[in-house]
């Protein structure tokens, strides 16, 4: 009931504001032509439904705002869905597909096990698996500034990129083929108002040795470089399932992004993120073999979702440095473009959806032009294939950094049909969504699908036939149960009442053992909690068995207000330091993080679970 009355108050205020704006327009004696030009009037003479003009339009632009929401994007609450960025015409440009990273024949100087500090390498520890899993492919990537367009009606933006594109180039890797990426910091001296020219590139979801993982404090400065060795190996290869690892631990959709401590949100907002795809003998990228998932790259498409703000005066990408709660953008981007379109054939596609942040939670629907939902299939959660596809018609939740691979079948549509990816989850500030679901057509339209008439064949598997992918790995007895409470003390994020310090090892995991962790959310906040290195199984959410989609291998846990989630891990093969942190990157940069280490001894810290 409280919620309803709050919404009524909000609506009253909306009506008042709308009336005030109308009075101002009348007082200013805008001509009819002025108003059409300004987009306030339709040619038929009706006032358009625009936030602040028509009270009914409040949810149609970029979301909504609540009573407590501040309205200036640079004033701490981050836009709140009120359009303050310059308007942009939706669906005028095709969605770009990031280029595939190309190998180099060799690197000079040749990579070494020990950090090549003398030649400018910023790494501080030896590679753990360089000789046992020697790299067979080499890449060179330069982090540098590039002028790029995010929308034709906005000026070119000075973005920070991996080799010149946003998202960065997509790495296409195979299990069994370790690679090495030489990662150069060529960022410019002038940051254009936000961002730090010091970086640590994290491969999100990788079974990666710590020194290549992109730990937040393994950063390196301008002119330096850092060799990152990605073994592309299944968990268990050196422990429970020698020599090649447990096939049930296969990962598919990974991404990489900057993770520089205290500056991750700024650096990623500026463009430092991209995809990393892993294939194997089942998930082959060829729809005539293995699991027969839609073929890469024509029908297997990565999509990175972001929301951003642009300065209303000059159209330049804007990051609110005074925001501590979470930045909400009023422009929605897919693969670096604001509201692009994408032409699809009348067949099945695999889309690899990623919530690239910085802070917003999404609930994605496929909205047909008659405002009904088009059902689709979820095949992977956080980049890990589910045992079987799960169909959804009720929208798909995605916290920051979560990936959802989906199969969408366009074969039932006539050529010329239009379908939108639409976020219908209401969120008015960085604290978390209101959990109101907006009506179809009233949410944030992210992307427009346009069905084209080309004749097509489709050899991909029909998810309705219930194909089987990987089973969730069987569990072994845990060595320890640890519990973590996420809270906020006078604006400072605490985990079990303690603050972050990169040098403080909060607990030690014994290598090749299993653990159960309980994560507890605090009042008033929602957090996507990410744990590096080993994906986990969700055992229980608030005492209940999780949904079929969440009953998966994951690396991000959505922790709503007072949620209590129980997860299972098996930390295998590698040692070193890793973080657990909130992936609302604004919370993360305000130190909502802890460090744990994996070693061969372990300890029992953080095991006070109160009720046990």
């Amino acid at each position: 009931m409280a919620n309803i009355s709050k919404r009524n108050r909000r609506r009253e205020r909306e009506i008042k504001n709308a009336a005030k704006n109308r009075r101002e327009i009348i007082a200013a004696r805008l001509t009819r032509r002025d108003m059409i030009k300004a987009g306030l009037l339709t040619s038929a003479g009706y006032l358009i439904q625009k936030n602040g003009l028509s009270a009914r339009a409040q949810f149609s632009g970029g979301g909504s705002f609540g009573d407590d929401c501040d309205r200036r994007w640079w004033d701490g609450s981050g836009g709140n869905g009120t359009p303050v960025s310059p308007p942009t015409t939706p669906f005028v440009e095709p969605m770009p597909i990031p280029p595939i990273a190309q190998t180099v024949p060799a690197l000079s100087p040749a990579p070494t096990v020990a950090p090549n500090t003398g030649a400018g390498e910023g790494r501080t520890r030896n590679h753990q698996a360089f000789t046992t899993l020697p790299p067979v492919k080499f890449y060179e990537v330069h982090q540098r500034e590039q002028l790029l367009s995010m929308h034709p009606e906005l000026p070119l933006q000075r973005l920070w990129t991996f080799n010149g594109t946003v998202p960065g180039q997509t790495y296409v890797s195979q299990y069994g083929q370790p690679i090495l990426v030489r990662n150069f910091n060529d960022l410019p001296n002038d940051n254009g108002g936000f961002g730090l020219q010091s970086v640590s590139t994290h491969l999100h979801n990788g079974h990666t040795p710590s020194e290549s993982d992109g730990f937040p404090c393994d950063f390196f400065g301008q002119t330096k470089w850092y060799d990152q060795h990605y073994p592309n190996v299944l968990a268990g290869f050196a422990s429970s399932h020698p020599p090649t690892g447990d096939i049930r631990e296969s990962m598919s959709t990974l991404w990489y992004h900057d993770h520089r401590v205290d500056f991750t949100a700024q650096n990623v907002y500026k463009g430092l993120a991209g995809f990393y795809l892993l294939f194997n003998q089942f998930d082959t990228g060829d729809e005539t073999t293995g699991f027969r998932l839609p073929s890469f790259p024509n029908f297997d498409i990565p999509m990175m979702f972001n929301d951003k703000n642009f300065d209303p005066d000059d159209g330049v990408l804007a990051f609110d440095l005074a925001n501590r709660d979470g930045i909400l953008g009023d422009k929605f981007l897919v693969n670096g473009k604001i509201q692009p379109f994408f032409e699809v054939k009348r067949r099945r596609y695999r889309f690899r959806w990623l919530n690239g942040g910085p802070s917003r939670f999404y609930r994605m629907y496929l909205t047909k032009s008659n405002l009904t939902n088009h059902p689709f299939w979820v095949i992977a959660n956080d980049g890990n294939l589910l045992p079987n596809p799960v169909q959804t018609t009720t929208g798909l939740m995605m916290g920051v950094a979560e990936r959802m691979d989906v199969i969408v079948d366009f074969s039932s549509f006539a050529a010329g049909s239009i379908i939108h990816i639409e976020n219908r989850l209401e969120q008015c500030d960085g604290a978390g969504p209101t959990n109101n679901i907006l009506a179809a057509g009233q949410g944030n339209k992210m992307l427009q699908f346009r069905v084209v008439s080309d004749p097509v064949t489709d050899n991909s598997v029909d998810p309705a036939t219930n194909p089987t992918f990987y089973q969730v790995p069987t569990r072994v007895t845990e060595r320890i149960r640890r519990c973590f409470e996420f809270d906020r003390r006078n604006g400072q994020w605490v985990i079990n009442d303690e603050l972050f310090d990169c040098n403080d090892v909060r607990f030690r995991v014994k290598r090749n053992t299993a653990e159960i962790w309980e994560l507890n959310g605090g009042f008033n906040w929602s957090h996507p909690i990410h744990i590096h290195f080993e994906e986990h199984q969700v055992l229980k959410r608030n005492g209940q068995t999780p949904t079929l989609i969440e009953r998966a291998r994951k690396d991000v846990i959505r922790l709503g207000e007072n949620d209590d989630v129980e997860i299972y891990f098996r930390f295998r093969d590698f040692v070193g330091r890793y973080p657990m942190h909130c992936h609302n990157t604004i919370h993360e940069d305000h130190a909502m993080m802890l460090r744990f280490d994996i070693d061969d001894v372990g300890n029992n810290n953080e095991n006070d679970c109160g009720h046990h």
Partner: protein
Amino acid sequence: MPDMNRRKLLATLAVAPLAAGVVGRAATSDNKFKVAESSREKLQKRYFPNFELTTHEGKKVRFYDDLVKDKIVVINFMYVKCEGVCMPVTMNLKKVQNLLGRRVGRDIFMYSITLKPEEDTPRALSRYVQAHKIKPGWTFLTGKPEEINTLRRSLGFKDAKAKLDKDLTNHTGMVKYGNEAREWWAMFPGEANAPWIVECIQWMDGGNAETTGAAGQNKTKRNEPGHNHSKVRNKG
């Protein structure tokens, strides 16, 4: 507003976010944007109002011109009679000041701004400085209440929830740090470990922000196997 012309309306709307989209649309159809200011000028306008403040030594200073411009700074908010987070943060920042040594006041400047300018006169702040034996280089500041409030909000020391924002006992223990010339700004928790805070502040030195030596070590505060650090958990 009968005399308001179109230009004036557009100017008004530009600062009224509810309708800012309206203005932008007009600008876009002309395909023209204002010539961009430098990003540094923009940051100054948005976050660092140049209000006149008074130091605990009674000196009049301008916030941007005299305190922030071209400097590495550490900024927090507090008040003298605070019984909450202020004292632990002040005590912790004293450790930070000691660890930074002579750099404080030379190229790193620490500022604590009062949340209660009505009662925290320069004299009251001066007594606080003396009572806690705070060394030079760390300046306590007061000013006009409405300007202090604007300053606080501009700098990001506020809560998005209006009710919490008004509750002084809930005021943030976060501390802003940055390098104005390089346009680097971030925050650390004021109660974090002092050596860690010192590392963060030293990143603002410029040049190459490289992996710190300390981050490469494993400082093991509680690494003995089997050791539990006990603490009361507030379930539910």
